[in-house]
């Protein structure tokens, strides 16, 4: 794809990230690393080299930029919520990642990873998915790039997100049930990693969040950094600077990492919102699973606990290592929210603004509702990471 000089100068990506790069060993502070079976170590190292080379290559960046603009529909707008702001007593802005192609922020990382996988000569993608958003995005990129695609999804999630399962199949991907353990996102990650161990030479593991072994937490954040870069420019023109608070939901933490990266060097408070039943950061117990050293919900012996959340996309007991670092260094704070508050927020946004959010970002709004006294008079930017179409059937049953 050809890019004109004019387009290059308006490129939304800066070349440097204010979040900083991880160390040589893939660490953010003490968190991160590459804790994977030996079979996968050369693959992770190859990916690290390929990503570094691609990310320093203007041709790769331009190609990705055009995909973002002409395929995903970026930049995503910011909506100022007058009605909601009046209701809650603080000024609320939404970064509309729900308006991206495939309905969530997940498309950013998936387009980046698929483009990179092609560049590396891989012919297949394997992915895990919780709510199905990452699976749908990966299936979409696989269709676009003519790659074979296998998506692992927990048996429980397959039942609660059957529309997304159908979407993935329609897009030409194979959906396989993860039947072990809690049969949710954690187990889908296990199965995807096992699949990758067996198919590592032809296959790129298109991991869906800022987690896993190095370089994934860094690479996935870099692909989502476009959210923060755009939002920072949009806030500069709308507000004349950064908002007082930037809030995003956190499961693995990809959308939060994306938007935080635009504001980590400002005065804005950064708030990640976890489901109360999956608050790895809230509990702050370190562990080593799925490739990185981070915070992890586990018992006294190190057995990983099952997360419980109304939202399949946040049903994950771990969290990306960079969030553990942001929490440990107190640059960001992380708050839990209950399922009941999420359901209330889901309805409130629909009723006041005509926007049905995904259950995941409804967590972030739930926190704003809970903290509205603290937030009175402040400007709050909420990353609306996905739209709620996928959750409508579940909510219809829930609210019946």
């Amino acid at each position, binding site marked *: 794809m050809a890019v004109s000089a004019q387009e290059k100068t308006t490129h939304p990506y800066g070349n440097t990230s204010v979040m900083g790069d991880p160390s040589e060993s893939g660490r953010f502070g003490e968190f991160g690393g590459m804790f994977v079976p030996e079979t996968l170590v050369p693959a992770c190292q190859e990916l690290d080299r390929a990503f570094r080379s691609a990310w320093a290559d203007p041709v790769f960046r331009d190609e990705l930029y055009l995909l973002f603009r002409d395929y995903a529909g970026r930049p995503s707008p910011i909506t100022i919520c007058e009605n909601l702001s009046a209701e809650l007593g603080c000024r609320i802005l939404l970064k509309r990642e729900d308006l991206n192609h495939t309905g969530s922020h997940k498309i950013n990382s998936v387009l980046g990873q698929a483009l990179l996988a092609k560049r590396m000569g891989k012919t297949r993608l394997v992915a895990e998915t919780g709510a199905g958003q990452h699976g749908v995005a990966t299936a979409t990129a696989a269709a676009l790039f003519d790659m074979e695609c296998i998506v692992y999804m927990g048996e429980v999630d397959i039942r609660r997100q059957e529309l997304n399962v159908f979407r993935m199949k329609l897009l030409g991907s194979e959906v396989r049930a993860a039947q072990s353990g809690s049969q949710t996102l954690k187990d889908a990650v*296990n199965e995807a990693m096992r699949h990758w161990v067996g198919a590592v030479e032809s296959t790129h593991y298109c991991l869906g969040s800022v987690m896993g072994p190095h370089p994934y937490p860094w690479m996935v954040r870099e692909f989502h950094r476009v959210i923060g870069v755009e939002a920072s420019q949009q806030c500069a023109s709308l507000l004349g600077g950064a908002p007082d608070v930037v809030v995003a939901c956190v499961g693995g933490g990809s959308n939060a990492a994306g938007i935080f990266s635009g504001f980590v060097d400002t005065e804005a408070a950064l708030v990640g919102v976890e489901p109360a039943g999956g608050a790895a950061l809230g509990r702050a117990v370190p562990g080593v699973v799925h490739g990185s050293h981070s915070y992890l919900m586990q018992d006294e012996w190190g057995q990983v606990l099952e997360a419980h959340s109304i939202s399949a996309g946040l049903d994950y007991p771990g969290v990306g290592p960079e969030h553990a670092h942001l929490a440990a260094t107190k640059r960001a704070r992380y708050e839990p929210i209950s399922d009941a508050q999420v359901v209330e927020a889901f309805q409130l946004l629909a009723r006041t603004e005509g926007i049905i959010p995904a259950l995941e970002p409804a967590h972030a709004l739930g926190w704003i509702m809970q903290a509205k006294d603290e937030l009175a008079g402040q400007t709050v930017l909420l990353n609306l990471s996905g739209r709620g179409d996928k959750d409508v059937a579940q909510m219809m049953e829930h609210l019946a």
Partner: protein
Amino acid sequence: MTGVLEAALRARLDRGGKCLVPYLTGGLGNDWLETVQAAAIAGADAVEIGIPFSDPVMDGPTIQLANDRALAAGVTPQQVFDRLHRADIGVPTVVMTYGNIAYRMGYQRFAASLARSTVAGAILPDIPLEELGPWATAADAEAIETVLLGAPTASDERLARIAQRSRGFVYAVGLLGITGVREQLAASAKVIAKRLKAVTDLPVLVGVGVGTPRQAVEVCEEADGVVVGSAMVQRMLDGAGPDGVAELVAEFRQALDESTNHC
């Protein structure tokens, strides 16, 4: 200094034999320790004991199920240590578990617990060379032999570095994939054994995808021995008990001995 695990394997090799290390899941059934002892009597040179973990990403369905059942029965790492502590097994043992079990207990405490239970070695498959430092320090201090894995995806240069840091033996991963019995021995099994033999004097044992005595004999044309996991664990899951597992160990022993004309 040669550790007891390496010494036991070398003793077999010095007699012209091939090494046999069955993998058994710790805490699976009330008679798991008797099963370990029976396997030793039936001809194992060492026994690998799995400490169940909730998310075993290197393991296939058989060992996953064994983990799940043992965890559902409430087994903890400490219980496995406690039973091994009082046991007379007759051959060295090496535990296999995942990094978080050791990390959560604290590497030093985990290594000390192994030493107290007279466990000779440890295999932590998700702590690769690059992340080994803190664990290796703790393990070395307690003279625990840390067995490293060498996989088909590694370069010769990497295999050499792995072999150099491995203790006891080098665990050659026989195929690209997770643990489990396959119909045929993968072509990669003999290749990885040969590549590792070229860069180390340590015993090279092939595991992952070695499920029958015939496959064991075949891979031992290049390798010094085999680790047999899922086939053994399947017997435990089937309720074959110590005798049933010992019978399978004896079949492997006999096939390997016949292949080397070793009695």
